[in-house]
């Protein structure tokens, strides 16, 4: 026998100002099964909760309705409260008479009627509620970090330091990511390598970290606490256990190709380590370029390797492992600015991207840090930096701001002067966006101490005359066109999502925005989580970020993983889909529509072991309780626990009569 208690909250004046709470409590008391109904100033407060507990005991209540705010905030509070009083937490309903009633109406009479409706609906539903229990799910306390840039490195180190094993998967031959390509970092000007390489080495030597470079995640299945991940370790053609990193192989390799790490400004060999501080310091053979693989010739590296580490026969390896959590730190790509035909990128050798400029001023770069023009190897005097190339420009690229360019432009303008003392920097900008600790001061320093000339306006054309690049643009503050005879033009190309971001997102159940950046679960309150439980974001795979932001988010993601692993077990949410196997026809439309791949076919056997039929089966670990399958089921054989058709329909039916009838009954009495 259902014995329902209803508790109407004033929320101070938030509700009571627009809703006659006393009338609500009185009206719903007329509903069948309601044995106790009251109102109180703050239901969520300590005395309010005691009131509920006391009433449960005194009136032997077995179902509770609280009419107050959004369940988003206080449903767990009240569920805990009635749990403490000995009831199952799911014998509870909340009517939202604040956000969906008092806050949005000003007619007190109508609002009171609506509050009665909403509360009566909750009563009708709670009468049909069933006790639900969570299941305990074990957690595999091992984390996977995808992407070995600074974000991935930081996340891996934090998780490993907390005592949990981590596998760090990196697609390229070395960890380090974009940051390894940078020269110095804003606003402190400490060198990127000096602060990054120690972290790379820490990763390599950490007993809890297993680095897998030249490897990619092939497939992910399972759910939070229990992901099954297949990783493809691509054939390196070098035996990592034998290689000592002496470098004879790449010194002697006769094949030279443009280096990806040097952004095409330098060369590497067919067998190579991408940069001297690579971790691991073990080369790979680029099989598309190596003559052994293309023409079956040469073989010099194998002949010369003192430890016999070169292995042309090596095959890709597929490794499947279980992980409890996944941190995605797959980073960004640099947008190709050749879409701006007027700026001559790709046509004139001295029009370069900012990342190429980083390599040209980097001591370990193709020119050993001597800033020279790619065309004639002479140091440039006048250098023009152009902001927002592909950012904030829907016509050519993306509407978003790439966030870091204003700062690295200032940094480049400043470093230019340090490299070539009589050089002059010109920076064309739309707005200077320098909102970070010490950022604005840094830009002022580039302007005031280093004499960078900032011109607010866009560049219309860059063209070559003799050995000069003529940069024509607008100075919108002076209201004049300007023309600069430059030796070098540096384009601050936009940051964009990795070309395969969409595919990675699909593998991991991450949603993406229209530019393929990974979407967080909530833009403000859940910035490192995604909608798939157990998967976290770090760094620029989510949106353009600088190094401090990437590292901060990586530590945030790591702490989420550590928080998950700190629990002995996971409690599953009991409001999941449930199949009535007796009526399920096995059409599996539910499987098609499930956004979380939580439904699998299951064969039912008779006692003799003969298959009778196939039905749908729900993996409770994967099910998020979204209810899509329920809407899709043709025979109503799949129901969502806690939100069954009978419960929902009872609410709908109530709407038709509640406030009218109940108010009439109150006035009769």
């Amino acid at each position, binding site marked *: 026998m259902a014995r329902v208690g209803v508790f109407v909250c004033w929320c101070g004046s938030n509700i009571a100002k627009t809703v006659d709470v006393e009338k609500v409590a009185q009206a719903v008391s007329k509903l069948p099964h309601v044995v106790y109904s009251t109102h109180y100033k703050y239901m969520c407060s300590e005395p309010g909760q005691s009131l509920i507990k006391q009433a449960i005991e005194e009136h032997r209540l077995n179902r509770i309705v609280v009419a107050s705010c959004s369940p988003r905030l206080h449903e767990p509070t009240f569920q805990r409260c009635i749990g403490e009083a000995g009831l199952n937490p799911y014998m509870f309903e909340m009517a939202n008479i604040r956000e969906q009633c008092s806050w949005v109406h000003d007619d007190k009479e109508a609002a009171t009627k609506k509050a009665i409706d909403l509360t009566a609906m909750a009563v009708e539903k709670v009468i049909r509620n069933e006790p639900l229990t969570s299941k305990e799910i074990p957690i595999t306390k091992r984390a996977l970090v995808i992407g070995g840039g600074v974000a991935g490195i930081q996340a891996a180190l934090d998780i490993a330091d907390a005592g949990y094993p981590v596998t760090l998967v990196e697609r390229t031959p070395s960890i380090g990511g974009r940051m390894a390509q940078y020269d110095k970092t804003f606003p402190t000007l400490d060198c990127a390598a000096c602060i990054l390489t120690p972290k790379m080495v820490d990763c390599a030597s950490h007993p809890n970290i297993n680095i897998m470079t030249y490897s990619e995640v092939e497939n992910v299945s399972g759910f939070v606490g229990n992901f099954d991940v297949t990783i493809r370790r691509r054939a390196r053609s070098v035996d990592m256990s034998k290689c000592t990193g002496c470098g004879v192989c790449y010194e002697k390799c006769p094949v030279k190709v443009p280096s990806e790490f040097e952004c095409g400004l330098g060369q590497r060999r067919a067998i190579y380590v991408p940069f001297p501080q690579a971790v691991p310091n073990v080369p790979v053979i680029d099989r598309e370029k190596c003559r052994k693989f293309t023409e079956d010739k040469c073989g010099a590296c194998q002949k010369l390797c003192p430890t016999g580490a070169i292995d042309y026969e090596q095959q890709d390896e597929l490794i499947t492992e279980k992980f409890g959590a996944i941190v995605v730190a797959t980073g960004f790509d640099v947008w190709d600015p050749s879409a701006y035909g007027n700026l001559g990128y790709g046509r004139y050798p001295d029009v370069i991207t900012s990342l190429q400029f980083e390599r040209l001023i980097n001591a370990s770069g193709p020119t050993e840090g001597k800033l020279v023009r790619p065309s004639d190897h002479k140091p440039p005097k006048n250098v023009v930096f152009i902001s927002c190339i592909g950012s904030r420009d829907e016509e050519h690229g993306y509407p978003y701001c790439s966030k870091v360019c204003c700062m690295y432009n200032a940094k480049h303008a400043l470093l230019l002067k340090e490299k070539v003392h009589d050089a002059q920097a010109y920076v064309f900008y739309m707005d200077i966006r320098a909102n970070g600790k010490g950022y604005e001061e840094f830009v002022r320093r580039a302007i005031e101490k280093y004499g960078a000339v900032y011109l607010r306006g866009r560049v219309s054309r860059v063209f*070559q005359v003799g050995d000069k690049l*003529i940069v024509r643009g607008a100075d919108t503050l002076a209201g004049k066109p300007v023309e600069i005879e430059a030796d070098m033009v540096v384009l601050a190309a936009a940051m964009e999502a990795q070309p395969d971001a969409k595919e990675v997102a699909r593998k991991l159940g991450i949603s993406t925005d229209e530019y393929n950046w990974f979407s967080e679960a909530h833009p403000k309150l859940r910035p490192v989580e995604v909608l798939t439980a157990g998967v976290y974001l770090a760094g620029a795979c989510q949106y353009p970020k600088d190094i401090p932001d990437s590292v901060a988010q990586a530590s945030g993601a790591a702490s989420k993983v550590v928080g998950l692993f700190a629990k002995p077990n996971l409690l599953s949410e009991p409001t999941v889909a449930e199949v009535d196997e007796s009526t399920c026809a096995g059409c599996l439309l539910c499987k098609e529509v499930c956004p979380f791949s939580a439904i699998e076919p299951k064969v039912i056997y008779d006692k003799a072991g003969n298959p009778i039929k196939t039905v749908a089966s729900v993996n409770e670990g994967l099910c998020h309780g979204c209810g899509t399958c329920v809407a899709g089921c043709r025979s109503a054989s799949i129901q969502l626990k806690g939100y069954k058709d009978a419960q929902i329909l009872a609410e709908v039916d109530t709407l038709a009569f509640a406030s009218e009838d109940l108010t009439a009954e109150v006035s009769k009495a």
Partner: protein
Amino acid sequence: MKYAYYPGCSLHSTANEYDLSTQAVCKTLGIELEEIPDWNCCGATSAHSLNHELAIALPLRNLAKAEEMGLDIVAPCAACFSRLKHADMVAKTDPERMHTFSEKFGIHYSGKINVYSLLQVISQYSEEEIKSHVKRGLSGLKIAAYYGCLLLRPPKVAAFDDPENPVSMDRILAALGAEVVDWPYKNECCGASLSISKSDIVVKLTRDILSMAKRAGANCISTACPLCQGNLDMRQPDIQRNYGENYEMPIFYFTQLMGLAFGLWEGNLGLKKLMVSPDAVLSEIGTE
């Protein structure tokens, strides 16, 4: 191929030599041109500076007439081409606006035909096809191909060649055996109709273009727009007066150069109409 030919006002007056040479060269290439009967002015700069409705209505009437002929339009002049293309785009993308034109002006155009610039039509011929008509290669001519600022812009309207680094005219001229210089002012502005209202600007801009062409090693310029040709050709005495620089650089229409290479009768190419005499430069042909 047969096209509805829209010469526009310029080709019937100051750019008569563009008209003559276009007809002569098209005849050689087997392009049949049928002039649109009773065509009217495209409105050019004046209309769209003053009245947006008129700026569409004027070219629209020409489009409707060509549609009646059942032929695609070819327009040699950059401004005519641009205005016709704009009107055609409105017709093909904005049926609501089209409705007002048919209501108000009784112009019925359904967008069944296409508009091409003459350069676009000729650049569809392969290098071999053009070479096959060449009787006298243009070696010795060092040509700067000048497209002007309007012919390829706005790119979404013009929709041919690369607006920032066009190559269609360069390819044609190279097929004629001429040396085509690489230069950065292919699509600079010549000042256009400011020639009438603010001629000092045009004198400066044309001087910049001529000076850049000379610097790139050109001994003549090839154009595809009556206004560009007129400005570059006629402002040279002013440039000499204002800047003391004497270029004496002949400014051809690309069709005149094609006609020369095809060995057509010079009277049909209107070479005598050019202000800067091409004789000295033309005597260089075949010397290298």
